[in-house]
């Protein structure tokens, strides 16, 4: 079910009413049923995959807790292998098989391994990673194994964050399902405000930019350098608004019911370095890789070559996490490369000691570097990505593509609006307050303005969130 659909609107209202009407003892059941329904709207049969990993990880958690010595590790490995196998089959099997075919074709041999005719279950990487974080945390002794099967299932399936995160840790969310929640006006209000802002980002900015981006990236060979740069910049904004918009709606949805989900974005395009960007972008995934891969590999407490290797492997795997395609692997690799170059050339910079101009230039430079990586993320193929890079760097001539002038104008207007709001939130927090203004008239007017901006300028064709495919 998509957040930006009428279906979800009706579903959510019903769930909220029932949630607050029901006694605390039955709420977990309501949320679990609602989450199953939410997921099954996409493709009902794939609930079985979720069911499989839930059962494995639930028992793995208990077994890990009840065991000692090497047996604990064995149970953890069993759980991790089960989770990774699901990912491998559904997400990477055909990709690996395709590459084997290509390789064998070079030697004139045909690949006898058949392809699987399967669709990728929606949000697979998200809930698999969340499930893995549970068994790892139980193994590390940071969290007790959950004995209530329904509550554990809800930990994996909680509908606001089921298909595109934030990827939660058991310490942050599991105890909340046990807590008795009361109707809290300020929680409801702040949740709804967050949802409203998320809808603005998704429907008005992301989906509007997508019209231009899809036209250009669909046939990149037809466009000149300026058009390709514009489309790339639009995509830079689109991906941010699409994903952070989703996250805002998810966090807001949960907040209304009294749940606190972790923060996933922190105005990433105001980062002064690529390193800082990754501490502001998709925080739940970055910290997942940091805690469960980068640090176990030795992190930065090793010799420099090994540190560089650790960084590169983490970023390449992060790229692969996004999708089974070389474009994502290159995207991840490029980000890793940026960080390695920064370590080798720049070392550690204390930005607080530098002038606003220096920081401003660094923000623009980081924004450009990150925008460049998005070319690989968005392009339909590696060939297209390199074609776009070539056209941009050779300053390919030709007419500038505007598409529908009003769509172009709307995109620019609302990108500027969004960045202005983010600028004030970043550098002058509390100076210009709209949704949380103490003056009722200003507060109401700001809600109404955003609602009517969404009604008048939103794209309502039910465009899917980009990160659902991961």
């Amino acid at each position: 079910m998509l957040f930006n659909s009428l279906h979800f609107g009706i579903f959510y209202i019903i769930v909220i009413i029932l949630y607050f009407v029901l006694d605390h003892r039955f709420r977990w059941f309501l949320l679990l049923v609602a989450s199953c329904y939410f997921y099954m709207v996409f493709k009902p049969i794939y609930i079985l995959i979720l069911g499989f990993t839930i059962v494995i990880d639930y028992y793995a958690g208990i077994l890990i807790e009840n065991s000692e010595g090497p047996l604990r590790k064995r149970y953890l490995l069993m759980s991790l292998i089960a989770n990774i196998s699901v990912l491998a089959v559904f997400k990477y099997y055909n990709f690996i098989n395709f590459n084997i075919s290509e390789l064998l074709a070079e030697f004139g041999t045909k690949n006898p391994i058949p392809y699987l005719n399967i669709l990728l279950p929606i949000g697979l990487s998200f809930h698999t990673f969340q499930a893995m974080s549970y068994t790892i945390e139980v193994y590390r002794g940071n969290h007790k194994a959950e004995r209530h099967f329904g509550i554990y299932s809800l930990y994996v399936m909680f509908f606001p964050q089921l298909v595109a995160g934030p990827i939660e840790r058991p310490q942050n969310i599991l105890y909340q399902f046990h807590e008795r929640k009361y109707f809290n006006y300020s929680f409801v209000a702040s949740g709804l405000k967050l949802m409203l802002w998320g809808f603005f980002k998704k429907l008005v900015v992301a989906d509007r930019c997508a019209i231009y981006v899809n036209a250009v990236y669909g046939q990149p060979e037809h466009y000149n350098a300026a058009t390709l740069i514009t489309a790339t910049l639009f995509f830079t904004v689109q991906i941010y608004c699409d994903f952070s918009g989703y996250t805002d709606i998810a966090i807001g949805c949960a907040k209304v019911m009294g749940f606190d989900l972790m923060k996933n974005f922190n105005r990433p395009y105001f980062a002064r370095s690529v390193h800082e960007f990754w501490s502001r972008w998709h925080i739940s995934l970055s910290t997942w890789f940091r805690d469960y891969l980068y640090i176990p590999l030795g992190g930065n407490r090793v010799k420099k070559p090994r540190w560089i290797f650790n960084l590169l492997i983490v970023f390449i795997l992060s790229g692969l996490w996004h999708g089974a395609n070389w474009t994502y692997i290159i995207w991840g690799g490029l980000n890793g490369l940026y960080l390695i170059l920064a370590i080798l050339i720049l070392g550690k910079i204390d930005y607080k000691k530098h002038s606003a101009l220096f920081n401003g230039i660094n923000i623009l430079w980081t924004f450009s570097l990150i925008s460049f990586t998005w070319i690989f993320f968005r392009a339909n193929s590696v060939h297209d990505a390199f074609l776009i890079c070539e056209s941009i760097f050779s300053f390919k001539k030709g007419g500038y593509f505007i598409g529908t002038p009003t769509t172009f104008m709307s995109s620019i207007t609302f990108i500027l609006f969004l960045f202005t709001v983010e600028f004030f939130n970043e550098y002058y927090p509390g100076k210009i307050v709209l949704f949380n203004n103490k003056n009722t008239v200003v507060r109401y007017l700001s809600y109404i303005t955003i609602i009517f901006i969404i009604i008048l300028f939103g794209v309502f064709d039910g465009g899917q969130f980009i990160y659902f495919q991961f």
Partner: protein
Amino acid sequence: MKLFKQLFLFLFTCFLFDRGLGWTLKKLLIAEPQGASNITSYGILKSDEDVLIYGSSRASHHYISKLIKDSLQLSTFNLGRDGMSILYDNIMYKAALGRYKPKVVILDLNPNELTWKAGQEGIDEATSVLLPYVNINKVVKENLDSINRLATLKAQVVHSYCFNSLPFSLLQHYFKIGEKDQFGYLKLVGSGVSNSEIVNSSIKDSVGCDSLLTNNLKEFISLSRDNGINLHVFISPKYNNFDTLSRSFEEIKKICIENDIPFHNLIGYKNGDRSLFYDAEHLNNSGARLYTEKTIAILKGDAAFVIGG
């Protein structure tokens, strides 16, 4: 209690705001001096010409209204609109017939008219363009209701929703930015047929004719017959030379013949003459001039009809 009081106040303010905004945008839409929605508004609310031309962008760029008017001594307006299908044309036609009866109607169709905007796509296209008129014109409302009830319901509850994506274009046209039409005709200047567009092949449909589109064509024809309107169905020129045409084309031809409606297949007219085409689908102003003269000759009965392709 605090929540309900605030919710009521908030919803009431939203309601007032919506009605005010809806009213303002409606006034802007109707007063629009140029642009695509001005042509739609005109067709629904004001048209009173003797000759009306319906169709997609190929209609709007191929029939010079003034030329037809001067030659036939009949007032003419071109109501063609970019990207629209017979579904849109039929609703527009019914809205006009609710006010008066034109003498002659030209319906310009694509050879693949009954397949190219099949299913939900055609419904969505027509809805997006006609939704602003749901609270203005009863005929439009009734017809959109029958194909997209949910959209009309939303438009009736939230008046400003009808104008989704329109404010910038309304302002643009209100301040007369952009090219102005000539009685609905939009001229294209220059020749931009690219080599990649040049093919010598056939237009083939992979799917059968869409029943909704087919029924709308039949209804368009029967409305003309019942109202005694002289309807001519045209397939206007394309740059490429097509050996065989589509299932949709055969169906259109069959429906016209069955209903005794003049059907003029001019898809091959001036084929391959780059100087007359803006792109593979559209004639430029010079091409449109020649083609309109040909159309006038056909309408006057001066040239042999190419009935049945």
